């Protein structure tokens, strides 16, 4: 799989710093599961964090801290989730955790024109939704008050002249108005995360928006 559209540096750094909303973390972790280039970029941003930690102004611990911690080492651990290994399926592992399985476990809700969505449960600062767009169908024109990441999981979509296929991620900010169109080859499934509601340019989608919660 050749990935042509990667994460931007600011998002990679914010992910490493741990300052992104949960929905964005989910999109980054899902893309990184498919993209070694961005995996290496995240690891290098982690290294910056390591240097900061190693050179930060120290704050002395209480006298008994070491003894207290040493005494804890033999206690059975609360729980260690097993180290995550690659999961088989269309959805990357982090998404499978949120969906509770692969594609067949997604609880789709139709939102018109054959388009379906499933909103995933994350913290309220941002929204993560899976979108199902039938081949050849366009999403309504929309722009964003904030940032949006769109990760393709199946099929492909065109946005202007760019084609985004499985593993590709589109990074858009509030200045972008776009009309993603699913490629005719296959129905397109993607993960879209936004930190502000989408703003549709036409009235009808705006009315629909109030009912379906896009």
């Amino acid at each position, binding site marked *: 799989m050749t990935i042509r559209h990667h994460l931007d540096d600011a998002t990679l750094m*914010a992910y490493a710093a*741990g300052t992104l909303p949960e929905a964005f973390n989910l999109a980054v972790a899902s893309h990184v599961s498919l993209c*070694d280039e961005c995996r290496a970029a995240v*690891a290098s941003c982690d290294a910056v964090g*390591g240097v*900061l*930690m190693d050179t930060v102004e120290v704050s002395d611990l209480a006298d008994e801290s070491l003894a207290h911690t040493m005494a*804890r080492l033999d206690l059975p651990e609360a729980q260690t989730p097993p180290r995550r290994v690659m999961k088989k399926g269309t959805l990357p*592992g982090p998404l499978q955790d949120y969906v509770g399985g692969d594609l067949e476990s997604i609880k789709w809700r139709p939102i018109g024109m054959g388009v379906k969505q499933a909103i995933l449960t994350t913290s309220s600062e941002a929204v993560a939704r899976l979108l199902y767009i039938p081949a050849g169908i366009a999403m309504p024109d929309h722009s964003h008050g904030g940032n949006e990441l769109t990760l393709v999981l199946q099929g492909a979509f065109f946005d202007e002249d760019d084609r985004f296929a499985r593993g590709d991620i589109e990074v858009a900010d509030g200045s972008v108005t776009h009309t993603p169109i699913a490629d005719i080859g296959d129905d397109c499934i993607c993960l879209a995360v936004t930190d502000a509601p989408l703003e549709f340019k036409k009235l009808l989608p705006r009315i629909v928006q109030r009912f379906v919660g896009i």
Partner: protein
Amino acid sequence: MQKSSKEIDPFRDVSRILDMNASTHTLQSLPRPATLTDGGPCALWGGKMSGFGKLSVEQKSQNSDWIAEMLRVRDQKDRKAFAALFTHFAPRIKGFLIKSGADAAMAEECAQDVMTTLWHKSEQFDPTRASVATWIFTIARNRRIDMLRRQRRPEPEELTWGPEPEPDQADTIALMQETEQLKAAMIALPDAQRELIEKAYFGDLSQAEIAKITGLPLGTIKSRIRLALDRLRHAMN
């Protein structure tokens, strides 16, 4: 929007000047960064040194990678090595968390938790992919998200599959050297820029503000990690 690969990428550019003579040194005789801050670019900015630029003479001269101690914890559950790691890193974890907005009591508790996690998860430490400081940073970051934000942090799938390939000592040394180069380069950054990066990691910058950070010397360390990942993929297939 998506940047094309032809655009100038500040994250990868500065690093080229850091491409020093790698992989000719042994574990015992690693070069320390030749110069740190004296008369460097900071002088141009005329600013005071920020917290993380201050390295004592003692720190400059000691072998500061802590890999030997970490491997003794991982492979032999060595408590003496753990105590040495604790003495060095716990005050740094606490300092980092206080800078990130935790109060002293929470930072203390969290530092102990992080060191306990280091003990229990030591088998996950891989010196070809992260330095000890980097690995501890990631544990502390995740713990901070748990405590301050009460959220889980989705993690990517791991690449490891079945029995781990034998770690390559040359890879370990190369990553260690590049981490040292990164450290020297970060210390040599102008104060204003270094403070921006600190703020990004302490959670004081928005994503749009982070996008304005330039000149981070990540190129060589990123290539190094990429190489380690490629080898891992190769071992899996």
